[in-house]
């Protein structure tokens, strides 16, 4: 018995060394560890003003010029261009702002309004000195205290945002304009509708492909479908990547998204829905299967003890 345990120890130790070398150790050598910022956006400057939502609304609709490109369904304002036209004009489809106040960090929003390319961390692509302007123009102020005006606009966005956002809505708003999710039946134009006639299905497919072409020209390559990204990358990678794409893929066209920690968790929940839908079932059944194998082993041991008794 003692000998068997010694042999088992040898087998376990060598297997453990093998596993550690091939998995955690090798992976640490292949992928540099990136420390996250916990969605604090510490490189951006604070806006300490107390925002007034009513003033903000006037600015958003007026001098801020937001509604010139952005729709805001929450207050009944439709986007001036449909997705296809917008992507043809700007390269990207300006998002609806109804959920922006809840999904994105307030400090991030303030900086975004003032200097989009800087907040989004795409200055390497959009450098005013080289004559390349970001499609979203920065806010130069409406004649008063610019910081106050910005705070007002952010306050307004926060005031119209819904208190509960579903994971799917978070994905659609924060990611869906660039990243399709075919397992969730989402394409860059939104949730893929079901058509009865084949001609309508094909027409929609063509519209999506044309959108993708324009998006590809704007971004440099087509942003990947995120159906199963939750299994293709580690959770730590996804969190630090969404928080700051440049930290993993230097020079990438993907903007810093600006999600709050909560917003990211919502997006992650949706990615888990499409990419790892069996998770709940797996976690529910796992303990039972292990219990079965444990009882099996105990019964087998008792049987073995009996069989070997007079040997």
């Amino acid at each position: 018995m003692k000998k068997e345990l010694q042999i088992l120890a040898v087998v376990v130790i060598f297997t453990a060394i093998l596993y550690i070398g091939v998995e955690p150790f090798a992976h640490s050598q292949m992928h540099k560890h990136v420390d996250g910022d916990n969605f604090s956006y510490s490189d951006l400057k604070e806006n300490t003003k107390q925002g007034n939502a009513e003033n903000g609304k006037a600015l958003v609709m007026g001098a801020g010029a937001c509604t010139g490109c952005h729709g805001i369904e929450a207050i009944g304002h439709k986007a001036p261009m449909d997705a296809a036209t917008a992507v043809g004009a700007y390269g990207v489809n300006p998002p609806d702002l109804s959920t922006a106040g809840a999904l994105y960090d307030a400090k991030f929003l303030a900086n975004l309004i003032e200097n989009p390319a800087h907040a989004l961390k795409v200055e390497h692509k959009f450098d005013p000195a080289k004559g390349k302007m970001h499609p979203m123009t920065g806010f130069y102020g409406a004649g008063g205290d610019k910081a106050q005006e910005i705070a007002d606009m952010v306050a307004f966005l926060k005031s119209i945002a819904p208190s509960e956002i579903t994971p799917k809505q978070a994905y659609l708003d924060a990611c869906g304009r660039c990243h399709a999710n075919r397992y969730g039946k989402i394409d860059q134009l939104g949730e893929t509708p079901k058509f009865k006639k084949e001609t309508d299905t094909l027409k929609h497919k063509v519209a999506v492909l044309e959108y993708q072409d324009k998006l590809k020209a704007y971004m440099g390559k087509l942003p990947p479908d995120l159906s199963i990204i939750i299994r293709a990358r580690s959770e730590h990678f996804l969190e630090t990547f969404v928080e700051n794409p440049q930290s993993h893929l230097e020079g990438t066209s993907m903007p810093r998204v600006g999600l709050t920690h909560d917003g990211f968790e919502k997006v992650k929940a949706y990615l888990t829905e499409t990419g790892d839908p069996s998770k709940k079932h797996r976690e529910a059944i796992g303990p039972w299967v292990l219990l079965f194998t444990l009882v099996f082993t105990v019964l087998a041991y008792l049987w073995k003890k009996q069989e070997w008794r007079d040997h």
Partner: protein
Amino acid sequence: MAHFEKANSIQEWLDQRLAVTTVKKVMALEYWIPKNINFLWAMGMVLAVTFALLTISGIFLLMYYKPDTGLAFDSVNYTIMSEVGFGWLWRHIHGVAASLVFLVIYIHMFTGIYYGSYKKGREMIWLSGMLLFVVFSAEAFSGYMLPWGQMSYWAGMVITNLFEGFSPDIAGGIMNAPGLVEWIRGDYVPGDAFLTRFFMLHVLLLPLVIIGLIGLHFAALRIPHVNNQDGEEIDYDEAAKLYKEGKTKESKVIPFQPVFLSKDVFVLGVYLILFFYLVFYHFNFAMDPVNFDPADGLKTPAHIYPEWYFLWSYEILRPFPKDPGLIAFGFAQVAFFLLPFLDKSDTVAPANRRGLFKYWFWIMLVDMIVLTVMGKLPPTGIWNHIGLVAAVVFIALFVALPWVTKNENKA
């Protein structure tokens, strides 16, 4: 027509036609196993059960998998993983079992090397076992192609490219095989033809070969009987007589069924706890994240590596320039087959009692682990150097084996 009397029971009826009782005696009730064994002797059953798990989970995957480069990835990652009832369970079982089967194969193999179970009558067991290893390797490789992820595609690309290594000036040009790589693939690059032929291999041909080889492996085992911890030559007739007389304590043997089987099943239980823990809670080592990116012929992943069980072999290939590397790789595949014939010692005993061979064994084991880990690491800097040393040590160990075993008792 042979003479048949009326049978008096179902047992007798079956015995007259199929010799059921005799078969049961030969295969189970009077198949004598030495008592002097440890849990490592149960690895054979663990392998058989793991192979059964692979087959059964494979059957359900086969119901929904689509062998088409446009459909394969989603048939696995969408249909099977989210639509099919318990599809995710079969897929996880299949992936984890495919990895664990090799862990147990290596444990089983090294047990055989340690106790000298590859010589003095047991050569066919060893050779059929090594053949099983090779066919299982082919089965694993072909299976890995099927999800058609990034790793599937690029592993397929890299491994088939190996055959490009036969340059015109080896062996007077006869090894020159222009278009061999394209012939294997059925196309210029790994594509639909490549996928479907590996599907055929994985699902039909190789499993049949494996089943046949398992039969041969068992047949080769029956006459010599399994080895024991001391390498002692047992008189099975005498031991069997003692046992059947009721002197079970004095006899050196036990019957396979039910005595040895009960120990087998207990070890199996412990293994299954580990197995199912991995299936439910820790499967990423067996289902590499890189393969969850759909195959893209225009984008190579930052790091390509085979599954862990091929890494030692991969690392013997890597440090050398192309042609010597291919020769070293070829040698590594054949080396273990030659073990019974390179070992010039007649002694069947555990390695720790075989003088120099003791050191040979542990150095070999450590070297295989070093090769495996180096094979995973990027081939840069110090890893490259260690890998080269380990590859050379591997070759040297086999070259030195005849000398080591001839002199093991003189140590």
